[in-house]
């Protein structure tokens, strides 16, 4: 079990690949650190199916695969072809296997994965930008979040309740401008409780990792 908490090696061929795919940065590393911190809770879920929406370089889903283990199927999506390709390569480079799908959010999977996703990760495009910068492909799609940086996140939040298994956990990366309190209220309406697993300042961004579980979930957090 040595080295399961090591930061994954990236599967890019050369640095220029990051012209088209989001290069892991403080937000990615905070998510990794918080998944590690929450490891006991992740294992308590006894996951069977995990899904990352917008997997980018693949560092997060690969890390999740490292710390949760092999008896699990890992799906990931991205709207950017170069990103799903790199995700696959990153997983492979670290001896892990993921099932990548090129699609918008979880569109092509959500019907079949209804109520089955035990761990769901989403590091959305959260940067506050004008609405018309919210992109459908390319590198802009990895960060441009529109009004409050919430336009893409808000499209996905209503789907979480149908995707997540009864004991499942959803981890979301946000910045302060995304208004985490408002997200908490919104998700409460879908039957979820929120816990901020950790926060960190990185330059101008105040980043947090929010975790959502169903009100009825036994997975709780005396960490």
């Amino acid at each position, binding site marked *: 079990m040595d080295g399961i908490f090591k930061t994954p090696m990236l599967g890019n061929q050369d640095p220029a690949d990051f012209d088209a795919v989001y290069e892991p940065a403080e937000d990615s590393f905070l998510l990794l650190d918080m998944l590690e911190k929450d490891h006991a809770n992740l294992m308590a879920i006894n996951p069977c199916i995990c899904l990352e929406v917008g997997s980018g370089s693949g560092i997060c889903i690969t890390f999740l695969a490292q710390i949760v283990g*092999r008896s699990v199927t890992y799906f990931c999506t991205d*709207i950017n072809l170069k990103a799903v390709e790199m995700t696959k390569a990153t997983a492979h480079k670290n001896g892990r296997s993921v099932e990548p799908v090129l699609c*918008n959010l979880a*569109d092509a999977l959500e019907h*079949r*994965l209804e109520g089955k996703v035990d761990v769901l990760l989403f590091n959305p495009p959260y940067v506050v930008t004008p609405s018309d910068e919210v992109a459908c492909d390319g590198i802009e799609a990895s960060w441009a979040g529109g009004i409050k940086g919430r336009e893409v996140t808000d499209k996905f939040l209503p789907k979480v309740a149908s995707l997540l298994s009864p004991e499942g956990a959803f981890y979301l990366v946000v910045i302060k401008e995304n208004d985490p309190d408002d997200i908490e209220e919104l998700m409460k309406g879908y039957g979820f409780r929120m816990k901020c697993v950790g926060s960190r300042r990185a330059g101008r961004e105040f980043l947090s990792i929010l975790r959502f579980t169903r009100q009825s979930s036994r997975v709780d957090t005396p960490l």
Partner: protein
Amino acid sequence: MLTSNIIKGVTKGFPLAINPTKIEVKEVDFNPAFVVKTLTKIDYPALYQAANDVGHGEGLPENIEGDVKENEELLKSLHNALLQVEVIEGELVCPESGRKFPISNGIPNMLLLENEIDNTGQ
């Protein structure tokens, strides 16, 4: 696990047919617990169809009856179909609309064109 019911007007879109042009079979460690667990999450008839579509349905019965845990031979066939056979190149075909989704480098492309998306709400 993929559906094409994201296409406007397609209600079920499952299971997608597979037309493979390049298949790889890789060696994956046999993990019976994983196979048993996964079996509870999937639609077996769809797996059966998919495995046969790609020409690796050997050893798979049309229906699964009895205790799978005790049937190592069956578990190994399931292991092969679930984990070892990978479609590298080919296409997925929507059973309702006939819309084709290319698979390239092992990655299915489920992106839709603007005019295929139902914007009228859920």
